[in-house]
């Protein structure tokens, strides 16, 4: 940067540097790493991605197919490769990221993941993870993505996305919000339910005071296909509570693998592992 040494370049250097880097002064003048002010295209991503998804509705009884992954954290280079791989897949309708979008709960980290994932040819949706709640991350997540609990229906399936990061709330007995989850599960206008959350209920970071109520609500739901989690950075599938409810854990981005989930019939499904 030789221009730095030229005395008359003081102001020009500043503006040239800012524009050359393609950043607006608003983004550059960061008040704190916890500052969550985001450019227009990095706000309300959940709503924007849902709008994109629902613009291509899935007809009733059509097979549902989506990519399942989680824990993008600081694996930006891996994210770039994951996007290239997913874009080769035919017939997938969207991608789910099972939390820990960021590592330090900072808005910039969420932007960096979106910088990669917005190159997907399909929309992606997220649920909040424990790392997304570090510091003021909960507020950053709300700003960049949206609500911590939300649901959407695509084709015959209702996806219930919920915050299960109990340890981040010092196990206050209110996370996950079981009454909200129950209310969502009561929706019998759809054929199937799928719950997606970050921390699995058998994990030590799940609030033990709420575990029984949550697992019980799932057990009683006749429409539930499975519960999906991240947090553990590796794929697993099983019935940890031996109650007929299947739990699927995602690969983290760093594992350079993801799942393609195909769902049909009442509760039929198939998982395909893809390496990239």
């Amino acid at each position, binding site marked *: 940067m030789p221009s730095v*040494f030229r005395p008359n370049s003081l102001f020009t250097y500043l503006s040239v540097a800012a524009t050359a*880097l393609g950043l607006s002064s608003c983004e550059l*003048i960061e008040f704190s790493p*916890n500052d969550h002010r985001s450019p227009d295209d990095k706000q309300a991503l959940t709503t924007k991605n849902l709008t994109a998804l629902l613009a291509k509705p899935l007809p009733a009884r059509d097979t549902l197919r989506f990519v399942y992954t989680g824990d993008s954290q600081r694996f*930006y*280079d891996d994210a770039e490769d994951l996007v290239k791989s997913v874009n080769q897949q035919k017939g997938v309708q969207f991608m789910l990221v099972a939390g820990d979008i960021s590592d330090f*709960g900072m808005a910039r980290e969420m932007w960096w993941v979106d910088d990669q994932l917005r190159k997907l040819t399909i929309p992606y949706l997220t649920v909040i993870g424990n790392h997304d709640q570090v510091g*003021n991350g909960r507020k950053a997540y709300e700003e960049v993505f949206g609500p911590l609990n939300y649901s959407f229906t695509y084709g015959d399936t209702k996806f219930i996305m919920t915050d299960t990061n109990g340890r981040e709330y010092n196990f206050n007995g209110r996370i996950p919000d079981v009454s909200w989850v129950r209310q969502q599960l009561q929706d019998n206008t759809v054929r199937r339910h799928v719950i997606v959350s970050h921390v699995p209920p058998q994990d030590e970071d799940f609030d033990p005071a709420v575990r029984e109520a949550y697992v019980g609500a799932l057990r009683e739901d006749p429409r539930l296909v499975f519960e999906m989690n991240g947090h553990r950075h590796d794929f697993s599938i099983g019935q940890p509570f031996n109650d007929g409810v299947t739990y699927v854990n995602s690969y983290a981005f760093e594992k350079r693998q993801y799942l393609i989930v195909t769902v049909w019939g009442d509760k039929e499904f198939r998982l395909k592992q893809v390496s990239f």
Partner: protein
Amino acid sequence: MASHLLLAVLLASPLVAVAQEQLANQTSSPSLLGRHQKYPMPANGDKKPWYRPRHVVLQTGGGIGMIAAGVGYGLGKDRNELDILLGYVPTKYAGSSLSIATAKYTYSPFVLPVGERWQVRPLTIGGYISYTHGTINDEEKGQYAKGYYWFSTDTRVGPVLGSRLAYQRRTREGQTRNISFYYELGSNDLYILSYVQNRKALSVGDILTLSLGLKADF
């Protein structure tokens, strides 16, 4: 409450410095602060006690506040400066009201006069350490197992690089006092780590922050 505490600490720091000076004189041990006395204090000839700040600072951005204000010391012909700042970010922008205490050290090797009254410092390099108080999900005692989050959520360190333009005004006594405008591009430990590990997906621009500030000698 916390911001009041920090403010009190800042206000008390010159007093601490006085106490340390006396202690240093009594024991004649060359403490770090005591040693500063040896510098030829004012570049412009007037005598002031070493512990009196040389300038006031007002800054925005750089990760240390929407507004950060404080005082600073010039060391070694004013080419080295140590600024102590207290920053504030309102809830609206960060989710909670934050107070950020910062110590920043800068070095400007070149001082170029432009005309009679103006002066440019084309290069300022330095670093800062900041401590943020008031985050929502602060690590509480016993909340996490040791090393659960290996990084500090509140303490950040980072480099800065910038330039400065100064105007020399004269006091009635004929002494010169600088009023300067500066900018600094900076980053922090966590952003730098992210970039170093992801050179393909991230660019230097992604991890930069900008600060704009004013310094006035008094």
